[in-house]
């Protein structure tokens, strides 16, 4: 009876093992392991059951079998546990593989593997960034085809350094080339790895074109803000100085007038009243000019492609009277390349420069004014040259300042060149003067940027 109970326990254990194998084994064991286990357990169960139920007619042969199963069962169970564990690990591995694969395939960034100057793997995003399919990249394109030629030497060097393990990983930006020839900015983070036993590079790639554009835009706005601020400061400074100055004169000479009246000095009364009138006039013109200047900050008209030749002819017609009154020899070079600018403002520039050239014409030699252009460093320099008064190198910056005049007696208020400079700067250009010094004549030069590239091509 006792023996029978022990056998019952064995049978129950076997039943439990069977349930376990059927429930979990099908999922976690491979088919090759699952069925032998199942068969073996059923077999052991049958043997034990036969023992319990005392099927005596086959007892003799069963005795040996029972011994046999009792020896084998623990070994078998150990093996079973081991297989169970192994399978578990493999499953984990497969799942993790799957996780990482979908991570890479569905990644927001491009992922690539490069070996022997060929893509060995690219994820769909990588292909999409450059406008290709993954197959095209793997079979038809090399890294060089995706890089702007100017940047390729740098990229090539970076690839080499990682392949030869000079550096473990590298993070840098370069300009890429898409299938339809657009330039994009990409950032890569690449690491040396091994692929089929040899050195390779695995990395991620991010399309930062938008980010770049945004940061460039931000920098441009910041710079603009800074100039605006500086301008505002200059403006307040000028207003506080140049507008206060005539006030001092006016109030001062009013005080003088009082004294003149006490002294009954008629001649001085006349003179002092003259001073007051003059100061009031100065103030009035300063105010008008300040308003003019403040208007330039906003481009009133959208920039267009302007033909300078026609524009110069227009300005000369406008200044005809002024030019004819003075003996000036005028020379206009033909074929000025077009300028992309606000037409009216550009006319103002030419008008001011030509007026200045006439105003400060040579009084020694025959006065000459030359209007022309010359190519320089990939852009066109437009100039107005005279053989007149000239400007000492030390003053060549100063003359563009607001209300700055080299000579207190010279005509004008010192606003013309400030306006010209502002117009050119608002257009993103540069203006300067070339002169050997006093009496040596001067050449006022300016350059303007062409039509912004973003409008003509998808590049910047």
């Amino acid at each position, binding site marked *: 009876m006792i023996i029978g109970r022990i056998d019952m326990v064995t049978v129950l254990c076997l039943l439990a093992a069977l349930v376990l194998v059927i429930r979990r084994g099908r999922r976690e064991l491979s088919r090759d392991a699952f069925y032998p286990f199942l068969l073996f357990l059923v077999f052991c169960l049958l043997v034990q059951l036969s023992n319990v139920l005392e099927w005596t007619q086959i007892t003799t042969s069963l005795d040996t079998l029972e011994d046999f199963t009792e020896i084998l069962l623990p070994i078998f169970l150990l093996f079973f546990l081991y297989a169970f564990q192994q399978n578990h690990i493999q499953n984990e591995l497969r799942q993790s593989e799957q996780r990482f694969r979908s991570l890479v395939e569905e990644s927001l960034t491009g992922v690539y593997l490069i070996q022997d100057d060929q893509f060995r793997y690219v994820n769909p995003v990588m292909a999409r960034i450059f406008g290709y399919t993954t197959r095209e990249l793997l079979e038809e394109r090399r890294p060089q085809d995706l890089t702007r030629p100017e940047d390729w030497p740098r990229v090539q060097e970076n690839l080499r350094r990682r392949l030869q393990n000079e550096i473990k990983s590298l993070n840098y930006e370069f300009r890429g080339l898409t299938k339809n020839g657009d330039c994009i900015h990409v950032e890569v983070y690449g690491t040396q790895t091994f692929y089929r036993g040899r050195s390779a590079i695995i990395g991620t790639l991010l399309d930062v074109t938008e980010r770049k554009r945004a940061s460039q835009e931000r920098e441009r706005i910041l710079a603009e803000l800074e100039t605006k601020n500086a301008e505002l400061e200059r403006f307040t*400074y000028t207003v*506080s*100085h140049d507008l*206060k*100055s*005539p*006030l*001092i*004169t006016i*109030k*001062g*000479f*009013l*005080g*003088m007038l009082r*004294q003149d009246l006490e002294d009954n000095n008629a001649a001085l009364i006349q003179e002092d009243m003259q*001073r007051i009138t*003059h*100061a009031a006039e100065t103030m009035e013109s300063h105010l008008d000019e300040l308003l003019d200047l403040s208007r330039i900050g906003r481009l009133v008209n959208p920039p267009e492609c302007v033909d300078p030749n026609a524009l110069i002819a227009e300005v000369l017609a406008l200044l005809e009277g002024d030019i004819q009154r003075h003996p000036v020899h005028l020379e206009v070079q033909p074929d000025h390349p077009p300028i992309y600018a606000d037409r009216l403002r550009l006319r103002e520039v030419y008008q001011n420069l030509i007026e200045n050239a006439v105003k*400060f014409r040579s009084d020694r030699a025959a006065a000459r004014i030359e209007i022309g252009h010359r190519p320089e460093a990939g852009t066109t320099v437009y100039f107005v040259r005279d053989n007149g*008064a*000239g*400007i*000492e190198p*030390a*003053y060549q910056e*100063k003359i563009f300042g607001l209300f*700055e*005049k*080299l*000579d*207190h*007696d010279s005509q004008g208020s010192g606003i013309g060149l400030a306006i010209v400079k502002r117009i050119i700067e608002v257009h993103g250009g540069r203006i300067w003067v070339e002169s050997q010094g*006093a*009496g040596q004549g001067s050449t006022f030069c300016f350059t303007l940027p062409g039509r912004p590239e973003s409008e003509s091509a998808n590049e910047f």
Partner: protein
Amino acid sequence: MSSSPNLNLNLKAKPKPQPLGGEPIQILLIEDNPGHAELVIRTLEHHRIANQIVTLPDGQAALDYLFGRAPYDQPASATRPHVILLDLRLPKIDGLEVLREIKNDPVLRRIPVVILTTSKAEQDVARAYEYHANSYLVKPVDFTKFSQMMQDLGFYWLGWNCSPWA
């Protein structure tokens, strides 16, 4: 653009503060605004302060005069003012630059330089003192104050103050 030197010598007024050696007390006025220059000269004369006021219209002329360069070649002693009244916003060479050059010269740096300007701008005041200005005066708009300031200025720098050339 070679303008003839604009040299105003006012030798008429009788000075109240008497120089020791009997040599004339010279004020160098560097001012580009002819109206302001005349105001300064006339108020100084009214208070009988200086007996010689030299007026120069821009920074270049001022430096040429002080350093005895053409067109002002004259003995150095003749160009040693007792006080320099210097405007800041000047044509050609800026007032601050003139100040810097004066204070860089081992002899000229002794001359008291009084900045006389319309600008109250902080950076102007700061930079003027940085370049060793001796005083910084803002021209008052009100004439009574202007006149008072000229009188005080004259009495202080030419009366009470010991001249570097005495």
